[in-house]
């Protein structure tokens, strides 16, 4: 069903044409094109993650009146690459009492879940791997895999701190999934489609004023509630209790080292990019914008949202676990549902422009 609904656009068609001109049989054209596309996405994601790590370090440094990495290249631009190489070379320390398969697969699941979401992110006009007709649902579904991986890491480590971290993250992500999805539903309702490309297309025209965020009041409310829930989803301060260093040392990843740790670490940054990219596509018109190419608009908007998340992280203290839950269930869930009802009514009554 999902495979049948692949609408292949952009790079994929270009790749297929290229392979056709090389004289490959049609089946192999598709297979090789998919493989190449996968490799390209993987490379892109790695660059994104490495860049975000560097960027976060620079931003945190400047907020804290430091320089951050300065030695490797211009303003330390390849510091994170060196760090990744270091982590690759490090000894993979495995606890004897671990649950072997669970311990091994947890970082893999985490990384793959972060990777899968990129299939449906429209980086610009035609720059999407696969425009699924249920794109939004697909992204929500695969990013939720992250919870399983955190629980697996917590359980498999056979460490009390890790287990507490895993349980905390499961409780947190499940709670914040609801307001996040309900906020997304506002966008889905207005565009009348679950496809990411359709949602972006529905926000075209009128300069920037067709973006969902400029549809007061529900567009803005939906964005704010979404970004709060997304912060929790990406495990970032003030909602970073799963890995609260001062309480749980490092939470679920306390027993991981070397490349396994790096996979958790990179997945976290990829998740941050994913939630920001979804926010861009749903609330900020995706690649829509005057003058510049669509992918520049898309990346610019996404980076601005990431900047917001980073500034929040380096300013705020952390919430306590019960306060976090209370905030989700007693405040965020009612607000998002009320917002959904208002938005639905306004859509029905055509009370918007």
């Amino acid at each position: 069903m999902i495979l049948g609904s692949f609408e292949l656009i952009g790079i994929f068609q270009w790749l297929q044409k290229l392979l056709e001109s090389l004289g490959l049989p049609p089946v192999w054209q598709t297979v090789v094109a998919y493989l190449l596309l996968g490799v390209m996405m993987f490379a892109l994601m790695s660059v994104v993650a490495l860049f975000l790590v560097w960027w976060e370090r620079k931003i945190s440094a400047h907020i804290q009146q430091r320089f951050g990495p300065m030695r490797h290249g211009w303003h330390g631009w390849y510091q994170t690459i060196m760090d990744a190489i270091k982590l690759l070379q490090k000894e993979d320390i495995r606890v004897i009492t671990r649950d072997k398969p669970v311990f091994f697969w947890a970082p893999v699941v985490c990384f793959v879940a972060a990777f899968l979401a990129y299939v449906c992110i429209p980086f610009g006009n035609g720059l999407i791997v696969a425009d699924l007709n249920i794109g939004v649902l697909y992204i929500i579904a695969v990013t939720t895999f992250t919870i399983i991986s955190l629980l697996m890491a917590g359980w498999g480590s056979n460490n009390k701190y890790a287990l507490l971290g895993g349980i905390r993250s499961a409780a947190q992500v499940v709670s914040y999934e609801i307001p996040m999805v309900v906020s997304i539903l506002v966008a889905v309702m207005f565009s009348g489609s679950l496809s990411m490309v359709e949602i972006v297309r529905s926000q075209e025209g009128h300069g920037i004023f067709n973006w969902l965020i400029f549809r007061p009041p529900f567009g803005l409310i939906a964005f704010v509630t979404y970004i709060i829930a997304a912060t929790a989803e990406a495990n970032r301060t003030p909602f970073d209790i799963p890995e609260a260093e001062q309480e749980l040392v490092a939470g679920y990843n306390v027993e991981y080292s070397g490349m396994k740790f790096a996979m958790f670490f990179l997945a976290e940054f990829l998740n941050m990019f994913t939630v920001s990219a979804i926010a861009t596509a749903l609330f900020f018109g995706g690649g829509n914008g005057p003058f510049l190419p669509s992918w520049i608009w898309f990346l610019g908007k996404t980076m601005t949202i990431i900047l917001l998340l980073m500034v929040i992280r380096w300013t705020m203290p952390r919430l306590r676990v019960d306060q976090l839950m209370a905030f989700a269930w007693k405040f965020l869930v009612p607000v998002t549902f009320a917002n959904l009802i208002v938005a639905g009514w306004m859509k029905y009554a055509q009370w918007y422009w």
Partner: protein
Amino acid sequence: MSGLRTEEFLVNMGPHHPATHGVCRLLLTMDGERVLHIEPYIGYLHRSIEKICENRTYAQCIPILDRFEYITAMSCNYTFALAVEKLAGIVPPERAEYLRVIMLELNRISSHLLWYGSIALDLGAITPFLYGFRERELIMDLFEMTCGQRLTFNYIRVGGVSRDIPAEFVPKCREAIATITEKMSDYEGLLNENPIWMARLKGVGVLTSEMAIAYGVSGPSLRGSGVKYDLRKNDPYSIYDRFDFDIPTGQNGDSYDRYIVRLKEIKQSLKIITQALDGLPAGDFKAKVPGVFKPAAGEVYSRIENSRGELGVYVLSDGTTKPVRVKTRGGSYNQLQVLPEIGKGLLIADIVAIMASLDIIMPEVDR
């Protein structure tokens, strides 16, 4: 769900844990996130300072006692010097007393700035940590300029101080005071009214005044519970009776009040330093103390108001060059005793907040 068998589990928080400020081990009995029972295990940082002092001359004791509470080493220097001066009847010159007050208050500020950074860090705000350290650095520079050391000073000696301040100390000190005064508004603006900060600290770890007195809690933690007790006012030592300053107190005795009291104390210390710099007289910085120093036989207890509470040194002398017994008292020891009492039944994150707000450091507990 009622048929599900659940059980408590033990978590070792420490000795190596980011939130225990040293090497404290808390054995937590937990029911999920809730802490049912706390048992502190101490002694991981025991260096037997008191015993070592028995084999040292009085002058040699001071650098050992630097390590007793290394965050405010000036206070440790001073308390011991005060005890020995009482014993030997030495009156330090006027200038020395002023220099001592300046150093003690600077050290109090540097200690509180360190604490400000660490409590913020313990509650997940990373940026204030570096802000606190940035201003602490100014004070460290002043200390380095004066005695060449940044942490263990060995500056305040029996009879005075080890050397006079350099010429550029006073302008640099005034500059540092101006900077810290200016940055204080940053600290307060960043956290004081922050809803998350207040949610984390308000009503958490309430220490009633009765309980605080019963456990012998002193210093800002006691004043946070509303008891207006400060040795600088209640039992004045040195020349503190000459300065005009207030004693900030809280009302509720929760972690937030302790936080506010400490921030206000920084301002009062700045006030004292300004007055001391204005009134700094010329003259000797050290009284004449014989090379082979033998105080009269007898015993003496001196106590001062440190940034973590009452810091006391008991010295027993038999008239020789070495003390027979040196006993130290630090505020953190009593504050650690309170922790199991007020932390019972709270969440693990609250234990971290309480421990940070009580400002417990382990060298003072373990000696």
